[in-house]
């Protein structure tokens, strides 16, 4: 009974919050709603008994990813509304609706066919994090390592892109001042 109520609370609030994210013209509302929606999704994970995934959702999406978005948002005036350009709203609406319908069909087909079987069923007495670890390091070892390698490549690329002239301090060096056209007497 409690789970029933909780599911609908989480599901409805997730939908509403993500709708606000898409519909709102205000950057600040969109960002807040996106973050709050992520929290609600982690609530759904907790409800399903997947505590580990729920917590990872909290840390990775609510914490790290949204913090990066927020950092980008600093360059906008967050209190003003944004004028959006809609070239063809009907087409967007149609394509979006079709995508949503397709996803519903894809995920409900096995449920209707009553054909869901867990390839790796939960072992009794094994915690959530351990179960994820076992599958990751046996069946999905290669994709896991490849993903790690791709992240490493992305990280090195990011460091090289951002790391130009990292070896001298912008606040102390004279040539950096000239580069930024700051004269010492002006300030």
């Amino acid at each position: 009974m409690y789970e029933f109520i909780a599911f609908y609370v989480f599901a409805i609030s997730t939908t509403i919050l993500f709708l606000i994210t898409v519909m709102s013209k205000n950057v600040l509302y969109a960002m807040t709603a996106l973050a709050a929606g992520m929290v609600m999704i982690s609530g759904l994970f907790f409800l399903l008994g997947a505590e580990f995934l729920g917590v990872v959702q909290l840390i990775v999406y609510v914490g790290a990813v949204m913090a990066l978005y927020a950092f980008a948002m600093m360059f906008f005036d967050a209190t003003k509304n944004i004028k959006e350009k809609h070239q063809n709203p009907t087409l967007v609406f149609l394509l979006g609706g079709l995508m949503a319908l397709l996803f519903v069909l894809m995920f409900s087909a096995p449920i209707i066919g009553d054909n869901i079987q867990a390839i790796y069923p939960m072992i009794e007495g094994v915690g959530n994090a351990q179960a994820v670890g076992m599958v990751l390091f046996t069946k999905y070892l290669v994709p896991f390592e490849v993903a790690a390698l791709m992240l490493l490549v992305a990280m090195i690329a990011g460091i090289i892109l951002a790391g130009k002239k990292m070896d001298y301090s912008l606040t102390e060096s004279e040539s950096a001042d000239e580069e930024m056209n700051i004269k010492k007497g002006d300030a």
Partner: protein
Amino acid sequence: MDATMLPEVTAAGVIIKAVLILAVIAAIAGFGTYIERKILAFMQRRLGPQHVGPFGLLQLAADGIKLFTKEDIIPQHANKFIFAIAPVITAATAFIALAAVPVFPGFTVPFTDIYVPSIASDINVGILFVLGMMAAGLYGPLLAGMAQSNKWGIIGSARTAIQFLSYEVVTGLSILAPIMLVGSLSFVDFNTYQTDGVWLVVYQPVAFILFLIAGFAETNRTPFDLLEHEAEIISGYVTEYSGMRWGLFFIGEYANMITIGVIASVVFLGGYNDFWFIPGWIMIIAKIAFSFFFMLWVRASWPHIRPDQLMWLCWKVLMPLAVINILITGLVIMI
């Protein structure tokens, strides 16, 4: 504290526990301001608050009256809704994080059968949940700064974001090494691992120091209080706040300090195990109190640092140290 002896946890017990946490921690957070002023005053050879009540003890009540009766100002061009909910986010996430940590020992309410558990919600991934919830706490300062249409606020929230991105990696990596040793993410397992009297800080001194430094950054305590550094950016994200909204930020900060103290005590300092002849519940309170005092001590001893120094410290010094610590721990476990 035997796992098999514990009575059944009912909904009433959990609700009583939740109310207790809210009441006690909010009261301690208020009282913490008095203790902070007194200790800082003592360390700086001043007297501190002493006019209201004996030894200034009623200063807390005076502050409360001041906060509640102050005019509640919302700036004209601010985003009013976000501006209003931002302090609530800080306070709420701080208290939600406390739901998964053992704050005081379990007990049975007198004259009834209701058992109040030690942890309000004993989930298997307790440590990660607490860290995740404290990570969500960054939205308080972030949204507050962005909603108030004030330049100092924007700078404060930009600093929130960089500070968060810096310390979060160190917190996670530093606490990973003890997790590897214990093999569990539950606070109860950490406690039972240390029942033989050897604290985890003996095996993991580097991880402990890294966690403490990251914890200071997480609670915005002084060496890292970039978000509201008065001398540089007025008050950062709280520039436009007044009255009880400002008070909520304060309560959230103090609740976070207590949470960090609990994590440090349970994970590294032996938890709520009995020590020699001292019962466990006194030990855990003593440890939390010491870590609270330690934060004030550091505040009195060290100056602020600049944002670039914080990033340099976190990414170039602490993170490599944490990774090396994990590598060594892994090698030792394997051999």
